[in-house]
Every structure is written in structure tokens, then in C-alpha cells.
């Protein structure tokens, strides 16, 4: 924990730097969204990668996750796993669940 005076004084400068980086990254996201990449999916991918980097910075620096107690990480581990399952559910709606799970292979269409 950054609880001692010196550590907090040091981190103040970092908060401002990270804030600046976040604003610049937001500007970059806007600019990149107007760039015509080969497919629009690539635009989405790039945008989401940038957003994830920004979110990670907020979580690590502003939310102090770069130095937290293990209990918090345990809670977050569950969250990450459950959220991943939530998004994975999408695959089962988009694909045939029986084929996807390897339950049977579809007969080739003539």
C-alpha cells in the first residue's frame, strides 16, 4: 500500500502523467476510428485493444491494483473468470451448440 508520505508524494506526479496519457489515447482512438483499415472488424479490434490498455492503466494506477492485498486479487480472479464465461455464452448462441461442443459432426451438404 502506498500509505507512507513519500510514496504518495511520488505517485501524485504519476496520476497527472497517466491522466495525460489517457486523454491522448482517447484522441488516438477517435482518430483511428476514421482511418479506413482493410476491414471494419480491424478498426473494432484496434479500438478495443486501445480501450483495454486505457482500462488497465485506470485499474492499475488510479485503483491501486498495482499494489493491493491478495484478497482483492482473489475476488477479481472470480470476476474475470465469470465475466469470460458470460462473453463465451455468445459463441453458443452464434454457433450450433451441438456441433461446437463436438457432440456430432454435421453431414456435408451435397
Amino acid at each position: 500500500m502506498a500509505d507512507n508520505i513519500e510514496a504518495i508524494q511520488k505517485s501524485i506526479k504519476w496520476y497527472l502523467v497517466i491522466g495525460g496519457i489517457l486523454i491522448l489515447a482517447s484522441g488516438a482512438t477517435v482518430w483511428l476510428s476514421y482511418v479506413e483499415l482493410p476491414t471494419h472488424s480491424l478498426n473494432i479490434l484496434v479500438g478495443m485493444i486501445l480501450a483495454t490498455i486505457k482500462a488497465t492503466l485506470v485499474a492499475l494506477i488510479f485503483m491501486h491494483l498495482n499494489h493491493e492485498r491478495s484478497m482483492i486479487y482473489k475476488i477479481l480472479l472470480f470476476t474475470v473468470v465469470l465475466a469470460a464465461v458470460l462473453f463465451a455464452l455468445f459463441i453458443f448462441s452464434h454457433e450450433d451448440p451441438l456441433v461446437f461442443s463436438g457432440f456430432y459432426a454435421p453431414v456435408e451438404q451435397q
Partner: protein
Amino acid sequence: MDIPYTVHARPDTGLYNAKIGIWLFLASEVMLFGGLFSAYIFLRVGADYPWPVHDLDVTLGFINTVVLIASSVTVVMAWAMLKLRKFGWYRINMAITVICAGVFMFNKSLEYKAKFAHYAVKLTDGTMLTGHLPHGYQVKFEGATEFNLSVPLKTSAVTADPIGHVLPFIEGTAPKFKTEGGQEITLDEASFKALSAEAVKKAAEAKKGTASIKLIATAPIKFAVKPSEIFAYTDTTITFRDGTTATGKLTDDKMTLEVDGVDARGVAQSEKSLAFDHRYLGEAWQKAFVENRDHHITKFEKDYPTRDKTRSATLQKESLFFKLNSAEAPAAGAAHGDAHGAEAHAPAGGHGDAHGHHPTVVLEKKDFTFFSNFTPKLNTYYAIYFTLTGLHGLHVIAGALVLLYFLAFDGKRLRQDPEHLANRVEVGGLFWHFVDLVWIFLFPLLYLL
């Protein structure tokens, strides 16, 4: 009884209690927003219309992004200043955070307001017209004299209520009505109650399921009503929401629309869109549209010779979603706009149109199938847009209220137990950062990509 471990860490977890509490709460919040982001993917993949990209006000969205990031910095600074016992700086940082929340919500309200006032009309050939309805949209009826009301004897969802569903739509003052008994009455709560009671009594005696009341207006009535406020209408009849029917003559169900956009992405031959019919935008705009479309297609072919132009959503939008920014069609050669949008700029000469910036068309009812303002009714994009930003907005309000409470009402704790207040601010701040974090994903997904 004192709540334990508000200041010092519990020996087993190494944390003060509120911190575990807020992280558990944030974990549940991740699942809440995760579910909605997951819904966003479902809706986007399943959308049977071009998913709107850059359709919201990007500048306003970007300003809000900067505002939220700034407030995230100030809230963590407030905590640090409290730890360093710089109380003045703590107060300043907290105040800026709350002000930022206010600015964010103010911008959001501007954005919502613009959407509520903006309309999209779907024409029968698949063209979408966007624009404003300067006078709203009303169906007009005149010469209505005979009214048939029915009151079911059993409880029913539809039962005659002319006071609530017929009288409000009369243009001018309501005339008197003649009952079947020849009596002349002024229709109001009391007189209708008496009339209805009498009719119900008669129907019960005759063992009928429904009591009918016939009213003849002493003077022909004119109606002006939104289509959503009535059940149905034909050229000669109108059925109100309470089941009351009237005969008369339909005089006007045309829609006056100030057109600011023609979206021909749903039309096979875009230049033949119904929007360019001689009754509507006409040939001059058609020319401007074609010129703009071909300009963008040629430019795309030049810039990206190897790419399939039918698969570029951006090109589809730039070439087929034509924005009209002047009241009259621009002269040849001036139609194509800047790098980002298909925007036709105002002609140099200017014009005397009272409405200024957009051409006005009067659409016949038979030519459009659907219209809506930019709300969840329009499409699934606006449904998820309002759900996500609305829920996020509620979080902004809630977080700002908590931080404002610490700033305004926790002065005693600030003087006597600043370490405890620092922990409170840290917990409030963690929630605030989470709100920022959600916006970091919302902004690109809804505004940019």
C-alpha cells in the same frame, strides 16, 4: 456500537472492511455491465440494418471522455491530498470532481434532447429519411357528428371514456351533444357517468353484453390527433383508444418533414429512391446525391484499388447516406463534402427559405411505413445505446452524490479523523474510477466503431 476496522486493517485480510465491500460490489457491477456489453454484441451481430457508426456527436462524446478522465485524476488526487493532510487541496479536488460529473450529465442531456427531437421515416422502397417534424405529426379529421360509444358490462381493457380519449383531440371548443333520448348535453365526467349508467342498466335488462351509446354532435367536429393516440383510421372513420368510433372525413394525414438526410443503403438502385420523386426532393437533389455517391466511390477505388467496395461499411455510409445541409440542392460540382461525411454544403447565393437549412417535403401516408424519433423504438442500436448510457449516467449521478456528501457533510470527520475520511474517499473514488472505466469502453463502442 462502533463499526470495526473502518480505519485500520483487519489482521486476517490486511484491508479495512469497506475496501473489501466495494471490491465485491464492483465485481457484481462488472457482471451487470458485462451482461449488457454481451447484449450489445448479440444485437450488433444480429442487426439487419447498417449499424450506426459515427452517428452520435463524436465531439460531445470526446469532451465527455476528457471530463471523466479529468475527474478520475482529481478524485485520486483528493485522496492523496487527504493522506498528506493538505485539506484545502483535498476540497478543491473533490469540488472539481463533482463539477466534472455535472458537466458530463449536462452534455449527456444535450445529446438525449437532440435524439428525442430528431426523426427517421422509412419509405416504402426502404429509403430512410432523417429530419425534423416542425409541427409534429397529426392526422386531421373533419365533419364528425355521429359517435358510437360502447361500454362492456364485464370489466374490460377498452371501455368508453370520451373525456380522456376523444374530447382532448377536438380542435376548438367541444359542441353540445344530443343523446338518443333527444336530450342536449355538455359532455363532461358527470353527464357521461349518468349516460353510461343508464345505458348499462338498459343493456342488463335486455341481457346484452355491451351497452351502446350514440351521441350526435350539434355542430360538426374537427379532430387533430397523433396516430399513436388513436387505434385506427380510414378515409371516413376514426376509432379512438376507448373504442369510440366516429364517422367523418379524413382531411390530412400527410407528414411535413424537414429532411436533413437520405439513407439509401436499403434501396437496390439508390438513385431511384422514392425520396427523389418529383413530389419530394426532386431531380436537383437526385443529381447532387448521384454526384456525391460517385465521387466517394471513385475516391475509394483510387485510394484502395485492391479492396472490395461493396464490403466497406464506411464507403456505403459515405456514398449512400446523403446529408442535406441547405434548403436547395447545391449547384453541380459543389455536392461532395469533406473527408468524413457525405455533406452537401449550402449554395453560395443563399435563399429565402424560412426554415433555413433543410428542404421540406410533404410525405403522403401511402409512401411511408414507419417513423420514429431516435429512441429505442427506432432500432436495436438506439435501444442498447439508451440502456447502456442511461445506466452509466445513473452511476455518474450516484457516484457524484456520494463524493458530494463526503465534501459537504463530512467536515467533522475531516477535522477529527482524517484517516477514516481518507478511506471513505478511497472507496468512493474506486467506484468513480469504475464509472470511468465503463465509459472507456462505451465511448468507442457507441460513438466510434
